């Protein structure tokens, strides 16, 4: 079957058809073998009865008249045997003293003769053909003749073979018909059983491409998982599409305001002649520009993190490494000198997406630098509850209760700070959520504040990660 297109093998209907045909063929073969053996047995039994009948008739007509054994073979015995019309007939009648009275003198006796008086059926070969024979004894108890007279009647096997073949041929026809009907019914049943799949297929094809609501079609249990997966996929797609739409709307709105402000200030600056006021304006323009720059940065970062939350696969990561890389990156992008790193001696392993966690850590640093008071410290630790923690620590006053309530929301910015985009902690919160972690704050008592994410700890990784850290 290699010439068949590979697609056929992926069809359940095709596989079922092939398997059913195979099974039915096996069953049919089994039946035929059984029929062969049964046919043989039935034919043997039927014709053995003829043989026995003929031998009985011959034995009955043996008598002793005037001291002589008289054998009068009845025509009816041969008529009986002639019912097997095409078969050759042999017989032999032996006197008690072993002398052959009539018939074929050379016809073989059975090899093993058990009980002498019971009729014995046996197979032998005579005159170049296989024959079935019966040996039967009749005891004569006359004055002149005393002892067993042996009657042997034999017949070739042509009629037996014909009957057996006929039985087998009929069985084979029956098997073929039954097999065909069974196969047809099985295929019909299969067609009916697979109809829900076709219904789902039609429902899928008929769907509006924009329709991302879950399937409500009733599904057979076997494909529930499949439909659920399709529904999950559509839900994710739906989420992504809404997130994208939200982002675009937010970004447009958020970008428009500061850029309009920037333009207005630039126009003011162009008309301003007082050098002192101009200087102040220039400073404000710079602050606005930095704000727009950070906003852009964070919007993109947020978009990336959101995207990864749906698509990135989680891997084993050492949080210490995340902290080191985030610090290095923060320093490279500028304005992050003098950040301290507080790392434990042992690896802190979590299941996470390295990029997202790095972005979160970087935003923690940026947030602390922007709103807190130096020195800023990035700390990785394991809490007493056995969870991994990465947090930025500063000496500032922290957040007001109102701010704490809105922590992690997008664009929850500090209106007093022109450079704030209000996205930093939103990114952190999103990353925390995607890693089944939580956003955590501590301090706020006036001179120290800490904000970070707590993540579930995974088992310590293989020892080589130690070496990796050492690099």
């Amino acid at each position, binding site marked *: 079957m290699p010439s068949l297109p590979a697609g056929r093998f992926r069809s359940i209907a095709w596989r079922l058809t092939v398997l059913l045909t195979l099974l039915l063929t096996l069953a049919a073969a089994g039946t035929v073998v059984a029929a062969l053996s049964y046919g043989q047995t039935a034919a043997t039994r039927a014709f053995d009865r003829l043989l026995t009948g003929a031998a009985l008739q011959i034995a009955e007509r043996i008598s002793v008249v005037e001291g002589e054994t*008289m*054998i*009068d*073979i*009845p*025509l009816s*015995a*041969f*008529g009986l*045997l*002639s019912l097997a*019309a*095409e*078969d*050759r*007939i*042999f017989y032999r*009648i032996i006197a008690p003293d072993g002398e052959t*009275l*009539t*018939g074929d003198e050379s016809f073989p006796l059975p090899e093993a003769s058990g009980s002498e008086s019971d009729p014995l059926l046996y197979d032998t070969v005579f*005159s*170049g*053909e296989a024959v079935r024979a019966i040996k039967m004894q009749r005891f004569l108890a006359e004055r002149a003749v005393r002892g067993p007279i042996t009657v042997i009647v034999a017949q070739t096997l*042509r009629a037996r073979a014909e009957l057996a073949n006929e039985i087998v041929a009929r069985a084979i026809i029956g098997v073929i018909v039954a097999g065909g009907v069974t196969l047809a019914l099985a295929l019909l049943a299969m067609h009916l059983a697979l109809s829900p799949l076709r219904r789902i297929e039609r429902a899928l094809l008929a769907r509006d491409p924009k329709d991302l609501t879950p399937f409500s079609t009733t599904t057979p249990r076997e494909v529930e998982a499949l439909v659920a997966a399709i529904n999950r996929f559509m839900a994710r797609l739906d989420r992504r599409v809404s997130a994208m739409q939200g982002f675009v709307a937010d970004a447009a709105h958020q970008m428009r305001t500061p850029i309009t402000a920037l333009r207005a200030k630039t126009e003011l600056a162009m008309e301003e002649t007082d050098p002192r006021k101009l200087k102040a304006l220039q400073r404000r323009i710079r602050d606005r520009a930095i704000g727009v720059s950070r906003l852009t940065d964070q919007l993109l970062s947020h978009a990336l993190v959101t995207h990864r939350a749906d698509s990135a696969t989680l891997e084993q990561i050492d949080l210490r490494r995340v902290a080191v890389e985030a610090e290095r990156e923060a320093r490279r992008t500028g304005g992050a000198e003098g950040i301290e790193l507080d790392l434990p001696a042992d690896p802190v392993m979590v299941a996470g997406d390295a990029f997202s966690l790095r972005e979160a850590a970087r935003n923690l640093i940026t947030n602390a630098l922007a709103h807190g008071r130096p020195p800023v410290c990035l700390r990785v630790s394991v809490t007493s509850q056995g969870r991994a923690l990465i947090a930025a620590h500063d000496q500032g006053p922290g957040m007001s209760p109102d701010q704490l309530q809105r922590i992690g929301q997008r664009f929850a910015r500090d209106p007093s700070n022109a450079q704030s985009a209000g996205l930093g902690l939103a990114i952190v919160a999103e990353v925390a959520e995607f890693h089944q972690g939580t956003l955590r704050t501590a301090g706020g008592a006036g001179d120290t504040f800490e904000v970070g994410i707590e993540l579930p700890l995974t088992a310590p990784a293989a020892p080589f990660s130690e070496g990796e850290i050492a690099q």
Partner: protein
Amino acid sequence: MKRLTGFVLTTAISLVAGLAGLSHAAETVTRFDAIGSTTSDLVIASVTDIDFMQPLISAFQAINPGMSVTYIQDTSNSLDKSVSEACASANFFADLVISSSIAQQVRLVNGGCARVIGTPVLTSLPDWAQWRGELIGLTYEPAVMVYNKEAFAAEGPPHSRFDLIDLMRQSDKLNGRIATYDIENSGVGYLFAFQDSTEASTWGRLIEGFGRNSVATFCCSSEVIDRVADGRAFVGYNVLGSYALSRAESDERIGVILPSDYTLVLSRAGYIPREARDAPAARAFLELALSPQGRAILDGETRLLTPLNGPAALARLSGDDELALRPIPLTPALLVSLDRAKRARFLSQWRKSVTLPSPR
């Protein structure tokens, strides 16, 4: 006979060199040379008079000009002996054995001496006229009574066995004037007699009548017919219909009766021996015999008829539509008549009845 190119009649001993040492006194061998150059020789062994077979042989040679035909003719018992010996020693004797002694033919086939003929002609034959696809009935010959027309000019001939029995009992007319087969030496005669004994209870009364009327027995149908023709006998019982009917055509003195109680019919049977040298030729010969051409020949002067159209032909020849025809089927049941013990009993009964009252 006239159209033959070569016709050689010789005695057996000179030709059948392979069987030297065996004595077959009655055997005659006739050789029909091929019309063209001889390519092959078909050997037919038969009990049938050469005159009866010769038209068929001529037709066969006309179709197969390269074939010469060797025809071995013998009495049934002698032929049976030769064929049996050849079969037992696996020697070649003939390509085709045809005999009216069908019980012996069945015995030979039963003994594994024959091979499957393998011809489509078999399917057209009635079941009784074939056995195992190895033995095939070629003719359709009734066992008839012949009578001397002059002797029965006044009261008319007997039409059934009952008539014959009554005639034998009630008058001396048939005393010494009945002829039949010598069933001890003739295979066909014995077969007819044995079938008579199984067919109806008339047999006992019949042989009693034969005995009382000093029946004369002969080896062959033709001798019985000769006797009836010249008036030495008035009735010939169980004569082969083929001989009787063909003789009655030319001989005004005799009449033929198909007994109305029942008429035995014998189908001269042929088989191809296992050791045949030219089985295809033998098969072709059998096929010819049952072909339309062969049937025309067998229905012709010889009156051998065929199992295919026998009843119709007999009805036409006898002018009687309600014939009680009893074909003797070619089955192993015929073996019973050959059983040594059975035969001995049957013959002793025959002898007791037939020879007791008046020694011939």
